[in-house]
């Protein structure tokens, strides 16, 4: 009996050791220590930005727009972003998906009431633009209520997106985050152009 027990002692001890180690590891998430899985881009994602003004607005637009584009292309947001960051020509489907995605982002933000008023964007646009001095003074003199009555942010943004040469813009991306910077520049210019047009109409 004691010989039999002695023969079983080491195997039993080994079974307990291996079982214990594997159980503890599995209990603490062993086997699931893997890179973060990309979320489904077709599920509405809350987007936030630490930036203010036009920079914050364009960041939110890009984040929602890329999600929408990825959803329509059937890829993850991250895969699309990484692909756009690579050099090379963009397909028609990618360009159109991104344009539609950005437009959808504008409409979604408008519905949510998260689009800023046009007057909130004017000062920042003027600060970063190299405008004729008289034109700049004239625009700054327009009361906010008049600016907001004359310009609807969603209209300006939708026109900007429609006019954007997205293929050229995407071809010049140094990396994925440049999309933000280039779109920001386009939005700033669009706000100024729209205001200058209205001003000329008034004159």
């Amino acid at each position, binding site marked *: 009996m004691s010989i039999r027990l002695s023969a079983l002692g080491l195997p039993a001890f080994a079974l307990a050791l291996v079982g214990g180690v594997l159980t503890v590891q599995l209990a603490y998430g062993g086997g699931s220590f893997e*890179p*973060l899985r990309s979320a489904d881009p077709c599920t509405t994602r809350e987007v936030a930005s630490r930036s203010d003004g036009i920079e914050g607005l364009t960041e939110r637009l890009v984040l929602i727009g890329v999600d929408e584009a990825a959803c329509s292309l059937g890829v*993850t947001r991250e895969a699309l972003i*990484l692909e756009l960051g690579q050099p090379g020509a963009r397909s028609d489907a990618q360009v159109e998906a991104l344009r539609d995605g950005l437009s959808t982002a504008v409409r979604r933000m408008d519905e949510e009431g998260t689009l800023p008023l046009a007057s909130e964007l004017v000062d920042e646009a003027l600060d970063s633009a190299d405008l004729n001095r008289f034109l700049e003074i004239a625009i700054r003199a327009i009361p906010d209520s008049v600016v907001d009555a004359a310009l609807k942010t969603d209209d300006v943004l939708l026109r900007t997106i429609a006019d954007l040469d997205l293929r050229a813009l995407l071809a010049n991306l140094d990396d994925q*985050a440049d999309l933000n910077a280039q779109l*920001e520049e386009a939005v700033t210019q669009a706000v100024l152009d729209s205001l200058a047009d209205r001003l000329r109409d008034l004159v």
Partner: protein
Amino acid sequence: MRRAVAPLLAVTVALVLADSAVVTLALPDILQHLDATVGQVAWVLISFNLVLGLIAVPAAVAFDRAQPRILSAVGIALFAGASAWCAVAGSIDVLIAARCLQALGGALALVGCLELMVAEWGERRGVAAWVTAGVLGTAVGPVAGGLLTQAISWQAIFVVQVPFAVLAVPAALAVRVVPALPPDRHRPAVRPNLTLALLSAALTAALFLLVLLLVEGWGRSPAAAALTVSVVPLAALAARPLARLMRPSPETEVAVGCFLIAGGLAGLAILPSAHLLWTVAPQALVGLGLGLTMDRLTAQAMELRLPRAHHAGWTIGARHVGVVVGLAILTPVFTADLQDAQEPAQEAIASLVLDAPLTAQDKIAVARGLGDELTQQQGRIPDLHRAFEAAELAPSERPAAAALERDLDTQLEAAATRAFRDSFLIGAALALLALLTVVWPGRRRAA
């Protein structure tokens, strides 16, 4: 001097067998210093084991026709010279050639030292000391290599071997009486040698892949990795007292050892995080298994078999061919898995950067740095810290950036850990196969 002869020979045995995996932690440094490819640098490891595995038996046969002390001294001198050549190698091709020569000298030294140690200490003590020195050398090799690489350089691994081997040459020549080798009477012990080969292949996963995961995957220093993997030899030392306490049969001991190695490798395949402490328990299982199996199997393969040197040659051959088979199976698996891990890792990084609580400008700066780093480090794990340093963020943004950097590092560690999973599981399967060779019923002889 007389009393130092046998210990010096035992040290030589440990050195030669340590060389099997001693360069594992130095491979990244060698790759960089000698401007080699990953494939070339793997041959620094493979060449030694392959030559040692293939030459061991012919080397043992050579001892039939030569004075063992002379041939041993020649082997040890060749090993010392080749070690010095490894240290001064200026190209990867030269280093690989030197490693082949080192293995050739090592094979002669190993077989010769067995004969000389038996002459010095007697059959029982001599064989036991030879087996123990070999197991210790195998287990301690990666640790010693890592510490030397971190403290001095990869060349130091080879330099430190030279004086010991040089001292062992006169020690070998000083052995007075070497009994004549008896004629070949016994066939090689197939089963213990097969188990040894399979276990050596499995242990490649523990000794080679784990250090790669620690250094290349988790970005730990060679010294930190060396200290971490020291759990294996320490646990191996605890195996003998454990066996004495439980008093199992030799077959049970070996079977349990195989099971523990399989369990430890399975544990390494399911690590819950990249914290070093999580590797301790699985490594302890592997170490216990190593301590229960390797010396016992070597003794079984050699026990009462003559000529002793021939059977020693078979065990050395089985072990090192096993290592090469392990490398041949595991290397393509983990390199392909590392390649496959890049895409999910990049997507995880992109996701975290996009959603990071940083300003858009800072996200752009960080993304640019990360893009550059990923491009420069193609095929290797990138150093994300440089990308954050290059971003030159405002002090108010640094806490959020530091949190993002930690999260990104975790993603890389998770991707690397996932990439090694299949290889560790294959290692565990090899250990279970070894267990099968132990418990499989043998052929019954007719009464």
